[in-house]
């Protein structure tokens, strides 16, 4: 990564990042097609019946969660954060899995390039990559979810 190594071809970590991003993207998209088919074809049951979804998508998210929780789930609180994982046996919430994969693949990409950056003495970028992993992990954790 030193200035003398600059060339027309991409750097090692850039190629590694691209490789992981590509695999994660294809896997996520493929899974999205499969899970959506399982949902809309009625192969898996849904928490919110398909013909009722349109009744709720005009509501603010807080009200939406409260309503579907009251009508179909019956928890103390609506399904926020990672609590949807408890509902993935249902077609509608199973679709959150590929969405989470597509949203999470960048974290893996960053984590993968950290060792190489430090090995090559690129401490500044190594530290920035770690910081990015931490920030994205914090966003993904659900700790920052706030409402109206």
């Amino acid at each position, binding site marked *: *990564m030193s200035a003398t190594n*600059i060339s*027309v071809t*991409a*750097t090692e*970590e*850039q*190629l590694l*990042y*691209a*490789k992981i*991003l*590509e695999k*994660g*993207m294809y896997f*996520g*998209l493929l899974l*999205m*097609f499969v899970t*959506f088919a399982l*949902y*809309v074809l009625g192969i898996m049951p849904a928490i919110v019946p*398909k*013909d009722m*979804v*349109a*009744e*709720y*998508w*005009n*509501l*603010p*998210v807080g009200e*939406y*969660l409260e309503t579907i929780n009251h009508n179909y789930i019956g928890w103390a609180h*609506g399904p*926020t*954060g990672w609590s949807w994982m408890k509902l993935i046996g249902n077609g*509608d919430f199973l*679709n*959150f899995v590929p*969405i*989470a994969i*597509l*949203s999470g693949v*960048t974290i893996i990409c960053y984590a993968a390039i950290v060792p190489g950056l430090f090995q090559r003495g690129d401490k*500044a*970028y190594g530290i*920035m*990559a770690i910081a*990015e992993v931490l*920030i*994205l992990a914090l*966003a*993904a954790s659900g700790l*920052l*979810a*706030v*409402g*109206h």
Partner: protein
Amino acid sequence: MRNFALRMGGAWLMSGLTMVLSPAMVYASEATAASPVPMNDGTAWWVWPVVLFVVTFVMGIIAVLGGVGGGVLYVPIISGFFPFHLDFVRGTGLLVALSGALAAGPGLLKANLASLRLAVPVALIASTMAIVGAMVGLALPTNIVQILLGATILGIVVIMFTAKKSDIPDVPQADSLSSALRICGIYHEYSSKQDINWKIHRTIPGLLTFIVIGFMAGMFGLGAGWANVPVLNLMMGAPLKISVATSKFLLSITDTSAAWIYLNKGCVIPMMVVPSLIGIMLGSFVGVRILKVAKPTFIRWMVIVILSFAGLKALTKGLGVELF
């Protein structure tokens, strides 16, 4: 064959526009906003996802031909003319922009057009601020966000009108920060068959600008290519191709951080997200093919008109004014 393709492309675009801007859509939107109880008009459950798929398919074509990201079209149009609440539209808009960036990112990185060295410091700032933007956007009342969205879209229209582009900006000397971080590179320009050495300047002001860009991306779920490219290209001096490619790749990081906030908050309805993603991706594939025969200037004007209309609609909807 060429004329046929043009006619088909035009027909698709017109039918899509007709559908997007039809009074039925306006009625649906207003009826929903006015109704304190869920709508039940007897429409079959599959109708809206199919309509969403068709509209996003057309949107995908227009986005490619107009040189804009899917998110910037998706959020104002879908929130203005469809019955979905803005919370879900923004969450889906981010995922639309994210999926486009994920699809393009690997190829751009491998071709060394997207620069990881340029993207990493920018993404660190933009993704952090996108989280803050998403949290603020979800905490503010919907009408305020709608008004700000309308103003932002109209601002984007002004940027599209006025922003210039520079294929290879003149950067006499790299500044000290970009030199220290070794943000520079070489890419092969096929049109001139030359290897282009590039470096950047004004790194600190450029990075600071991404505080605002990241915040707005998270707040409105728009993606941010409309802002990334001018800043990377005109302010920081990266070549246009590097700016466009790095901007596209950047969205995969910026939008990821904000998407997690929306996902954790529950702003994701698969019945909206999946048809939108599939529609916009298939539309983008078709758009790339039509691009060979389309007239970019006309399409760009069309995008400006659509965005102006959608921006005004968002503004008036937020203000509670029924202008159209």
